[in-house]
């Protein structure tokens, strides 16, 4: 029998970042992420913040849809709940940013449970419709409960502060976003090394056998809804504090669809996929419009023709990706990684 120092071996065997190679690259990544704002211009900083905030929302949706198999068309509304909570708490109650952040998450989680609760007996398309209803109702509330939300015009908030330090530009805000992204991603990865995460996946893959294995479906689906909308709420709070304004226009149904597309393009059931998908969906439209802007400079007469092309190209790109790699960007990344295997520590 090969019983020896089990603990040691399995511990390293199961570590998130297994070997020296991954640890090295992770270090490089952190260094780059930390140094990035010192060299990046205003525009890049703005985009980086946007991408980070989107990543948090996408990780949340992936937990629900990609890992637990519950499709939601209401994710943007939950982000909205977080955003409005943050705006209301900071303007009306003068609560500090660091308190608004978890409270926005909790409020969104609360709404997630309320919406999720009755829908948990529903599956597939029916659940989809139920979350769609939630999206539309919440949108309606954002617009029409004017005394609370400021209606169509929304609300403006002053720049957030952390212990008196004012985060009044994108450079400063970047570090808040970065820390929150790292926290969300780490916690999500942690979860999928434990029984809770396994239960989510089991429910997605075969809910009947999951139940016979002792998983309380209602409880774990509620967990998935709560956690997913908690992250949505965090994302919403950051979003509002970053833009210093909130209006209903930020959280339309189309935004929910965009998040679903992100998770699918990035990779369902993959944390890395959520990150890549969010970056893709944030950056690529910008690249396309830059490219088209460049063309317009050369062919000024083609402007009216080129402008609408933006959406078409973006849509086409998504379709092409899905046709060639249905498992998403995460799978492409995995293949690249395997190709370069252990570099720079290969033996």
């Amino acid at each position, binding site marked *: 029998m090969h019983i020896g120092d089990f603990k040691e071996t399995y511990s390293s065997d199961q570590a998130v970042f297994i070997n020296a190679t991954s640890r090295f690259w992770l270090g490089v990544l952190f260094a780059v992420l930390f140094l990035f704002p010192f060299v990046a211009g205003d525009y890049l900083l703005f985009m980086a913040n946007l991408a980070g905030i989107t990543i948090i929302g996408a990780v949340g949706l992936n937990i629900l849809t990609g890992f637990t198999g519950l499709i939601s068309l209401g994710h943007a509304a939950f982000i909205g709940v977080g955003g409005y909570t943050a705006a209301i708490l900071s303007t009306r109650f003068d609560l500090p940013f660091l308190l608004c952040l978890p409270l926005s998450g909790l409020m969104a989680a609360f709404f997630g449970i309320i919406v999720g609760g009755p829908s948990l007996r529903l599956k597939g398309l029916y659940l989809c419709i139920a979350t769609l209803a939630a999206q539309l109702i919440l949108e309606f509330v954002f617009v029409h409960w004017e005394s609370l939300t400021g209606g169509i015009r929304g609300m403006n908030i002053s720049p957030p502060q952390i212990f008196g330090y004012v985060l009044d530009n994108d450079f400063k805000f970047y570090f808040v976003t970065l820390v929150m992204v790292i926290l969300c991603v780490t916690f999500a990865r*942690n979860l999928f090394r*434990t*029984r809770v995460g396994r239960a989510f996946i*089991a429910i997605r*893959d075969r809910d009947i056998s999951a139940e016979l*294995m*002792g998983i309380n479906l209602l409880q774990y689906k509620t967990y998935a809804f709560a956690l997913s909308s908690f992250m949505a709420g965090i994302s919403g709070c950051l979003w509002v504090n970053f833009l210093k304004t909130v209006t209903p226009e930020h959280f339309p149904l189309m935004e929910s669809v965009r998040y679903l597309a992100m998770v699918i393009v990035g990779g369902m059931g993959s944390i890395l996929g959520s990150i890549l998908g969010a970056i893709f969906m944030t950056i690529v439209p910008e690249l396309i419009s830059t490219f088209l802007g460049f063309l317009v400079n050369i062919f000024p007469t083609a402007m009216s023709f080129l402008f609408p092309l933006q959406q078409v190209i973006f849509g086409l790109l998504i379709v092409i990706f899905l046709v060639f790699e249905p498992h998403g960007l995460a799978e492409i990344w995995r293949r690249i990684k395997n190709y370069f295997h252990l570099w720079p520590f290969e033996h």
Partner: protein
Amino acid sequence: MKILSIENISLSFGGLNVLSDVSFDVNKGEIFAIIGPNGAGKTSILNIISGFYGPEKGKVFFNGKDLSHIHADKRAALGMGRTFQNIALYHGMSVLDNIKLGAHTHLKTGLMSGLWYWGKAHKEEMELRKKIEKDIIDFLEIESIRKQPVSSLAYGLQKRVELARALAMRPKVLLMDEPVAGMNAEETEDMARFILDIKEEYNITIVLIEHDMKMIMDISDRVLVLNFGRALTHGTPKEVQKHPEVIAAYLGQKKAETMEKG
């Protein structure tokens, strides 16, 4: 001593009587086989015992406890393990994670400690891993595949992983639905050996559905014969084999088959 009692179970689906007034007891520590032609209602009985189907009439007792109001997931916690006729593994997970999932009810990590992971959750995971390696992976000889995704495995191995997952549930009673269906002779022999070992080394009571008569006669202590949702007879393999109605039911089927073939 009986560990499982099925009392006067009836079940129907939209006018079709699937089970009519079926009763039997399973003794602690035995291998109890349920046989019968296709559609006899064997799987339906396991589904009632697991709590996936609710019977129209009748009751299931487990260690003397009436299970009527105990939900399927709670029955797993009471000590009911299960494998499925159509393999029901989780294809998005590795072999190891599938097995770990079986231990779900024995673990404590909640949502919060799971998100945090370091400390309690980590310790629990490591202990679980150690236990699974020792008690299950070594025992079922699946060391070499434990990291693989289950979807990449051959059919026979998938069946074995399903058994591993059921063992991780640490059941008192293990319900197995056709564990060797679709296996070749060698795999069947291995599986029969594992089932006997599980009974003897782990003291797990086994309720087994199988069509493989040779295996049934070799390993089971008692056999229940179902036909069209009714219990035809039960007894030791020898007794059952000689029972005229069983011969009629089985030979009838065989005769019909040979006649069809001409």
